[in-house]
C-alpha cells in the first residue's frame, strides 16, 4: 500500500467520521433531554438533503446561479425546515408518548422514518432513483506526491467541525445550553426552577435535526449523489456511534462517529489483506459485527451514561 492510497483512506475515513459524528450528536442530544431514541433521525437527514436539492433546482429556475449564494440559501432552507420538522416530531409524536414504555417511542419514530423514506421514494419526482447532487464547492486540489487534497473535501470537513463546535459552545457556554443541561439532568427540578420544559425539548430536537440536515448536505456534496435510502443506514450508523461513545455524552458521540468510520476503513483495508478473495464490501458486515461484540463488552458505551436506578 502506497502512502498516497493510505492517506486517501484516512482522509475519506475522517470525512465519513465527521458525518457520522454529526448524526450521533443529534441522537445524544435527544437522549440527553428526554431519554428517548428518535430513530427517524437518519431519515430526517435524507429529507434535509432532498430539501437542499429541491431548493437548488428552484434557485436554478428563478435564475440565481452564483454557487456561493446557492449554497448558502440551500443550507439555510434545509437546516431551518428540518429544525422545524424535528420540533414537530417532538411535539406531536415524541412528547405525547412520554409516559408510555420507552420502546413505543422507538417504534413510533422507526415507523415515522419509514413514512419519510417511502414518502420521498413515492412522491419526489422519480424519487426511487439516485439523484445527482450539484457540485457547488470549488474543485481546486493540491497534490502532495501521490495524494491529492481536494479543496471541497477540506471545506466540508471544516464546516462539519465548525457545526459540532458551535453546538458544543451553545450547550456549554450559553444560558440556553444551561437550560438544556438542566432538563437533561432532572426535568422535574428544571421545571420547578422556571425552565419551560416543552420549549427546551422542542428546541433541542430542532438543533439536532438541523445538524442532521447539515450532515445530509455534506453527504450530498461529498458524494455528489443522494438517494432515498441513505437515511436508514446513516441513522443506524449514527445510533451505533452514539451508543459506542455512550448515549447522552456529546464527546462520546464524536468519538463514536470517528471510531465507526475507522472500523469501516479497517474492514475495507484489512479484510482483503488478511483473507485474500474477500471483497471490500464486507466492511459494513465487519463494522456492525464489531459493534455487536463491543456492546457485549461495554453495554453502555465507552463513556458510560451516569445513572442510578431507583427501584
Amino acid at each position, binding site marked *: 500500500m502506497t502512502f498516497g492510497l493510505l492517506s486517501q483512506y484516512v482522509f475519506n475515513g475522517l470525512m465519513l467520521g465527521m458525518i457520522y459524528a454529526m448524526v450521533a450528536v443529534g441522537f445524544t442530544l435527544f437522549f440527553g433531554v428526554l431519554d428517548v431514541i428518535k430513530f427517524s433521525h437518519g431519515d430526517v437527514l435524507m429529507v434535509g438533503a432532498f430539501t437542499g436539492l429541491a431548493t437548488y433546482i428552484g434557485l436554478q429556475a428563478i435564475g440565481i446561479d452564483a454557487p456561493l449564494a446557492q449554497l448558502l440559501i440551500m443550507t439555510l432552507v434545509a437546516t431551518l425546515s428540518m429544525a422545524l420538522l424535528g420540533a414537530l416530531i417532538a411535539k406531536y409524536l415524541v412528547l405525547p408518548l412520554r409516559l408510555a414504555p420507552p420502546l413505543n417511542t422507538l417504534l413510533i419514530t422507526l*415507523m415515522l422514518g*419509514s413514512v419519510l423514506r*417511502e414518502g420521498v421514494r413515492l412522491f419526489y419526482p422519480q424519487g426511487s432513483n439516485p439523484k445527482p447532487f450539484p457540485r457547488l464547492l470549488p474543485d481546486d486540489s493540491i497534490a502532495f506526491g501521490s495524494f491529492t487534497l481536494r479543496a471541497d473535501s477540506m471545506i466540508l470537513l471544516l464546516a462539519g467541525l465548525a457545526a459540532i463546535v458551535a453546538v458544543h459552545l451553545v450547550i456549554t457556554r450559553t444560558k440556553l445550553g444551561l437550560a438544556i443541561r438542566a432538563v437533561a439532568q432532572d426535568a422535574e427540578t428544571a421545571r420547578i426552577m422556571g425552565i419551560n420544559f416543552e420549549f427546551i425539548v422542542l428546541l433541542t430536537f430542532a438543533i439536532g435535526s438541523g445538524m442532521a440536515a447539515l450532515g445530509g448536505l455534506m453527504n450530498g456534496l461529498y458524494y455528489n449523489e443522494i438517494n432515498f435510502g441513505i437515511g436508514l443506514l446513516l441513522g*443506524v450508523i449514527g*445510533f451505533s456511534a452514539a451508543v459506542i461513545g455512550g*448515549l447522552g455524552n456529546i464527546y462520546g458521540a464524536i468519538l463514536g462517529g470517528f471510531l465507526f468510520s475507522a472500523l469501516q476503513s479497517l474492514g475495507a483495508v484489512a479484510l482483503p489483506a488478511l483473507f485474500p478473495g474477500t471483497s471490500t464490501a464486507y466492511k459494513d*458486515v465487519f463494522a456492525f459485527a464489531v459493534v455487536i461484540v463491543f456492546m457485549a463488552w461495554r453495554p453502555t458505551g465507552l463513556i458510560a451514561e451516569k445513572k442510578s436506578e431507583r427501584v
Partner: protein
Amino acid sequence: MKRLLSAQSAFPALASMAALTLFAVLFLHAESQTAVMGLTAGAIVVMLLLARFGWNALAASSFAGHSSQAHAAVILGVLAVMAAFYDSHFPLLMLASVLLYVVVCLGLNLQFGYAGVVNFAGAAFFGIGCYTSAVLTNHTPLPHVLVMFIGGLMAAGIGSLLILPVLRTYGHYAALITIAFGILFRVFLEVNDTLGGPQGIKVPGMEIMGWKLNDGVQIGGIELSFYVNYVLLALAMAAVAFMLVRRLERSWIGLNLDAVRLDETACAAFGIDVARWKIAAFTLGNFLAGLAGSVYAMMTGFVAPNSFTFGDSLILVSIVILGGIGNPWGLTVATAIVLILPEKLQFIQEYRLLLYAALVILILLFKPDGLMPRQVRNYLPGWKP
C-alpha cells in the same frame, strides 16, 4: 333463540367463524378492484356495526368458553377456504404464506409480547431459515423434514450469538443490537457470492418421505393445485405453533415471562431467573421464525436478499403491534390483513410500507394496546363469577 345468542352458547363463535370463512372466500375470489374495495369497505362497516351492538364481545366470550369447538371451527374454516380454491395456485399460495407468517409472528410475539425482548431482525431470522434450506436442499441429500428443523435450529443457533449482548443490555441498546444484526445479515447476503449474491438461489420443492409436495394431487379424477400440499403442511405447523404458544402463555412459564417483561428487578427479587427466561423466549422465537422460513423457501422455490430487508422486519413488528401485543388471535387476523390486502388491492401494493407505518403510528398514538388487546389472564377457563 335467546339461549343461542348468549355467551354460554357456542353459537356466536361458530357463526362468526362461518361468516369469516365466507368472507375470506369471497375476498380471495374477487377479481376486479371495485369488488375488492367494496368488500373491504363493507367489512369495515360491518365490523364497526357489530362492535356497536356488542356482538364482538359476545363472540369473544363464547369463543373463550368453547375453545375446543372454536379451534376446530378455525381449522375447518381454513380447510373450507382451501377447498374453495382447490385448483387455483395464487389464493392457495397466499393462504399458505399467511399461515407460515403466523408461525413467524407467533415467535416474535413470544419474544416481544411475553418476555419483552425486542427483536427488530425478525426478517433476518426468517431469512436464515430460508437460506439454510436453500443451501441444504441444493448441496446435500438430507431429507427435507430434517432440513426444515435444521433451518429452525440454525436461526436459533445464530440468534444465540446475540444472546450475550442482548442480555447485557436493555431498552434502546438491545434494540440497536437486533437492528445492527438485521442490516449486517442483509449486507452479508448481498456481497456473498457463494450464497448467490443479490440474485439469490433457486430452491427445489419439498419432499417428505417420497411425497413430492410440488406435484399436483388427484382425488377421484379432480386435479388439485400442488399448493394444497403446502397449505396442509403450513396449517399443521401454524396449529402446532399456536397451541405451543397458547399453552406456554397459560402455564407457569408464561407467568414467568410476563413477570420478566413487566419488572425485571422485582422478578429477580422473587427468585425468577431473568436471563434464563429471556434466553428461552428469544431462542424459541427465532426457532419458529427459522422453521417457517425453511418451508417458505421450499414453497416459493427461490430466495433472494431483497426479501429480508429491515423494512420486512418492521412489517413483522407492525403485525404484532396491530394485532395487540401478546394476543395470538389478534396477530393471526393482523397477519392475514397485512399480507393479503396489498396483494388484492394492487394500487396500495406500492404504498404498503407507507400505509402500515402510518397505521402503526396512529395505533401507537391513539390505541396503544392494538386492534385486539390482550385479555387479562384467566386462571380458570370457563369460570364465571
